């Protein structure tokens, strides 16, 4: 079994309204050192395979097709096991 951890974030060039709202909240709580906040998604996938190369290829395909919308989002992932 391989565990894939996928992170999907809004592209740097695209406004992230949730991140802006959270930064505003942190500022109002006097965490004024917070320069920027980007909110993303965290996903754990359990894969029924032991072939890391195959897993990397398949997870990339999953990200491209479904898990991220590459018009507005970036993705990266880590494989374990």
């Amino acid at each position, binding site marked *: 079994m391989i565990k894939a951890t996928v992170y999907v974030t*809004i592209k740097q*060039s*695209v*406004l992230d*309204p*949730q991140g*802006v*709202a959270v930064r505003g909240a942190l500022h109002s709580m006097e965490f004024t050192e917070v320069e920027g906040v980007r909110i993303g*998604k965290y996903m754990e996938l359990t894969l029924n395979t032991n072939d890391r190369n195959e897993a990397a290829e398949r997870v990339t395909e999953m990200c491209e097709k*479904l*898990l991220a*919308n590459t*018009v*507005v989002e970036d993705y990266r992932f880590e494989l374990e096991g």
Partner: protein
Amino acid sequence: MKFAVLVFPGSNCDIDCYKAVEETTGEPVDYVWHTATDLSEYDCILVPGGFSYGDYLRCGAIARFAPVMAEVAKAAEQGKYVLGICNGFQILTEAGLLPGALRRNTSMKFICQDSKLQVVNHTTPFTSEYAAGEEITIPIAHGEGNYYCDEATLERLKANNQIVFRYSHNPNGSTDDIAGICNERGNVVGMMPHPERAVSSILGSEDGKRMFTSILTAWRDQYGAATVG
């Protein structure tokens, strides 16, 4: 002319769309479940608003892989009329039938109110009965209607006259005040405002009516069918 209104688990504007087609055009219309694999009998496909598949992951991300969507792509390719409203617009962008994406409103709020729109392109099959630059009132109801595309795409949209509607007062942070766009060919339109909720004065506006009657007129012009009545 025959209309299809797609129904996904979580669609909630399907009945409004159905009634709007029925009342404004008098043409036959069917609900078509998301598992359908044949849309060949339909001339116009409406992808209604709602929260398909709970909008899990992203709005429209899962609906875009429903079996019926392959048929919608085929219909678009054949030049049939496809109109995505609200969640339907989000689904069409996810499916790559329209460029760009819809982000969370900059206010982070779900906005449900009348909105004034400017008809930017009145030459599509969906807008031919409006005047160029006409201002119309159509309600919006969305939390994620903030249209985004990169600059190169925006230039292309402008150059090809693909911006169909702009907000007179941008409610959600949309790039270039965009409320609705079409594909290059003009037979696929996506918009966040709800014309199906503006087909009777008792609902506050009748300005959405002409979208449906425009489609019928376009179809009759294309096929030379006799006008009824």
